[in-house]
């Protein structure tokens, strides 16, 4: 059972449908206790980082999510869901409170684009694998996927970066550490390539024993 985390941030319909289409059995849930039974976890999300962390906190998700990730349960964060895996975000940060804290599962910080290009980074950009032999991407051809974001993930360890795309500079498009993965783009909105990457995540999840 793949649990799609419903914490009130954005539409879960598309990602759930995409998972169903590739034969997975997603369960959308607002109940953190269900994570214990999950074989894999998908953390989607659209919106602001601080709001997302507040929702996760208020609804009791933070500790169960961290515990699941640390136990080696397959975990995929999508878009904002990937950014939440990091340590901090400067999105809507205030001078008084400083940056928002994230889940701290994959070391890194989320920062705003500072170049002159248009923001949001919106549309189809081309993935470049950091290591074509990495199990999540092995045998899958590089291509375009759909991005929509104004902040980007800067990983502390380069080895956690699985793919980048070029938007003024290399932008982190996929991260991975152990069984925890993140995709900055929307695989559910990214045509065949997005479908292949979701399929691979589901296939890898099925192999993992935890």
């Amino acid at each position, binding site marked *: 059972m793949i649990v799609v985390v419903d914490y009130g941030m*954005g*539409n879960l*319909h*598309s990602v759930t*449908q*995409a998972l169903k289409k590739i034969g997975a059995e997603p369960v959308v849930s607002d109940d953190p206790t269900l994570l214990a039974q999950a074989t894999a976890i998908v953390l989607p999300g*659209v*919106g*602001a980082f601080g709001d997302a962390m507040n929702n996760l906190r208020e609804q009791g998700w933070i500790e169960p999510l961290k515990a699941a990730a640390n136990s080696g349960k397959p975990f995929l964060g999508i878009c904002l869901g990937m950014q939440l895996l990091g340590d901090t975000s400067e999105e809507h940060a205030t001078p008084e409170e400083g940056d928002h804290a994230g889940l701290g599962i994959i070391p890194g910080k989320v920062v705003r684009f500072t170049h002159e*290009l*248009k*923001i*949001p*980074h*919106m*549309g*189809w*950009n*081309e993935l470049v694998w950091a290591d074509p032999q990495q199990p999540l991407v092995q045998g899958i051809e590089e*291509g*375009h996927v*759909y*991005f*929509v*974001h*104004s902040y980007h993930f800067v990983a502390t360890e380069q080895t956690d970066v699985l793919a980048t795309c*070029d*938007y003024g500079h290399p932008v982190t498009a996929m991260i991975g550490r152990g069984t925890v993965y993140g995709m900055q783009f*929307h695989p*559910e*909105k*990214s*045509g*065949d390539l*997005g*479908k292949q990457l979701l399929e691979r995540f589901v296939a890898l999840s099925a192999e993992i024993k935890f």
Partner: protein
Amino acid sequence: MLAKRIIPCLDVKDGRVVKGVNFVNLRDAGDPVELAEIYDREGADELVFLDISASHEGRETMVDVVRKTAGEISIPFTVGGGIRTVEDMKRMLRAGADKIGINTAAVVNPQLVADGSRWFGAQCIVVAIDGRWNAQWNDWEVYTHGGRTPTGIHVVQWAQEVERLGAGELLLTSMDADGTKDGFDIAMTAAVSKVTGIPVIASGGAGKKEHFADVFTQAGADAGLAATIFHYKEISIAEVKADARAKGVPIR
């Protein structure tokens, strides 16, 4: 590199696709969900649904169309038409739309742009602007209500204002070019694209495959939108893309 997008637009009335030529003379061209799937397969980068239903029932039908479409296609889509409140936005986003287009409602109530952006994120809020050349002003003027009502607002200023309010993208339609098939309005698109920091979708006037490459290279548009030429198979998306790619435009 970020690819330039080719976007077919589907005008939907009471759950069926129609297309107005110069906003009148509607013709029926089929089932929106089916057409959306076809465009997805043909390589469309995104879709726009414009709901032109006049009745409450028609708009309810649109929610169903959005839900069905979201389950079938693997590209993003925007829904516009008849969106007046944050609640309207929420219903469409919940049904599976990726972005919400607002036009008249943004002019009537600019706070809607700010509220939508705050609630759902700037990336969800597309402000549609219908512009027409005003010879007296020697500048472009914003029209609302499907192009019927002049507002006295300058297009370029309005674009900057909605960006400031929190719009994530602009859908800029030239009423002068719309229906002519003589090409996009390069001058107006360039004027807006030059002064805004958010993506601009050019709309109105596409008649030949070359028109898309023109608006990308000459006007700095991030996407090109068309309806009729795609619906009636006058040009395929593949042809448009091949032409632009051959001219060095980054294309998916």
